[in-house]
């Protein structure tokens, strides 16, 4: 491959990274707004948020992208710049998946925490901001990390609409060189490296957030804690299920 072709690939990487960043921001915002709305006390708010989730999870991301590109412009007279159209379609779709994560994590917070907030006469918004979210957010990170990888894979879909991302640049190089094995192997490897970096960053974030509420990340227990658990298990082994603990 010549350096000119590599330049094409580099531009593609840059577009993919930009699109990933913007749609991840939008998806994050959507998932928190919709996810919190699904725990609202008014049924109509819960219903609308649930309806949104089912519609956007029910249909395919590629169809959403087609819809934003082809139906939105004639129907409403909007013509979006490709980057924003891609961001909108991906952000709304993956935001719907993310809202399930947010809702699940909020529901998993110990009910006593919410009751404590009521007893201290916090307003609903204070309860959410000061009690529920700080405990729920660290629990969301592993699921969000998986979703982020799905989103990265989703960004390749915009190349179908002719946006010059990494998958699109692969196609251009294939046409220029008249052979595909080499370039597609490189492009798959580049996607894999990006995904690997993302999981690393998310794992670091999880560690920091969990340290903030006094927890350890999953699967990362110190030797001391493990030994203590083993000691507990062997000490409690004799008493069995009915034993006093």
């Amino acid at each position: 491959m010549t350096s000119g072709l590599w330049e094409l690939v580099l531009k593609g990487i840059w577009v993919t990274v930009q699109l990933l960043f913007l749609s991840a921001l939008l998806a994050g915002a959507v998932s928190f707004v919709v996810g919190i709305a699904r725990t609202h006390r008014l049924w109509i708010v819960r219903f609308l948020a649930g309806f949104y989730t089912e519609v956007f999870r029910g249909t395919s991301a590629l169809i959403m992208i087609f819809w934003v590109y082809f139906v939105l412009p004639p129907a409403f007279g909007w013509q979006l710049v490709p980057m924003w159209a891609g961001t909108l379609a991906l952000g709304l779709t993956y935001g719907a998946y993310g809202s399930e994560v947010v809702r699940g994590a909020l529901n998993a917070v110990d009910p006593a925490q919410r009751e404590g907030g009521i007893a201290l006469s916090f307003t609903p918004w204070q309860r959410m901001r000061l009690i529920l979210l700080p405990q729920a957010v660290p629990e969301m990170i592993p699921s969000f990390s998986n979703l982020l990888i799905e989103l990265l894979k989703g960004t390749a879909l915009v190349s179908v609409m002719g946006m010059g991302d990494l998958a699109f640049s692969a196609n251009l190089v294939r046409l220029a060189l008249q052979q595909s094995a080499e370039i597609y192997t490189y492009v798959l490897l580049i996607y894999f490296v990006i995904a690997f970096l993302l999981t690393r960053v998310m794992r670091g974030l999880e560690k920091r957030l969990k340290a903030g509420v006094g927890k350890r990340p999953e699967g990362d227990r110190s030797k001391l804690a493990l030994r203590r658990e083993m000691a507990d298990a062997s000490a409690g082994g004799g008493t069995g299920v009915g034993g006093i603990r």
Partner: protein
Amino acid sequence: MKWDWSAVGDFMPHFWDGLLVTLQALVLGSVISFALGLVWALLMRVPTRWVRWPVGVVTEFIRNTPLLVQLFFLFYVLPEWNITFSALTTGVVAIGLHYSTYTMQVYRAGIEGVPPGQWEAATALNLPLRRTWTAVILPQAIRRVVPALGNYVISMLKDTPLLMVITVLEMLGEARLYSQQHFQFTEPLTVIGVAFILISYPASLLMRALERRLVR
């Protein structure tokens, strides 16, 4: 915004053709992913790391790279190696392979969820390894993972429109073809969008019901 019902009527015959291809791809892709996922999951339990390590790397690689690029890879690179499949076969293989790396994790969780007492009982009864797997472990593991596998079938359904890019005329392919011929984009695209919701939402309700019944 103009909505033209006659365009919907004209599109419907194409829609049914597309639906048939979508369902074909879905069923065959599911079969491949279920079978291959089980193979991966079992290979990951082989005692030597010379098997586990390559299988782990390959499946991790397939899971973390876009299905779209994998489709292009199979569609353009295999003919260079003198292996030619039809577009639909290529698509089915790609989807099956991609999702087998997800079902593999489902099977793994199912196998690990079988209580250790079952393994010990199989040893105590002196069952050979093969019988331990086929008669004791797998029946219990698979029963537990049916709803999770079903959820991946729904995800797979939502990824079948990707086959359009390698010239398979499934639902989205038919819609695009019709749009380009008649210059009406709104109706066909909306029809298939609604069709996807109408299929996948009841299916996800079914999986939730199955989960309540099978997993306890």
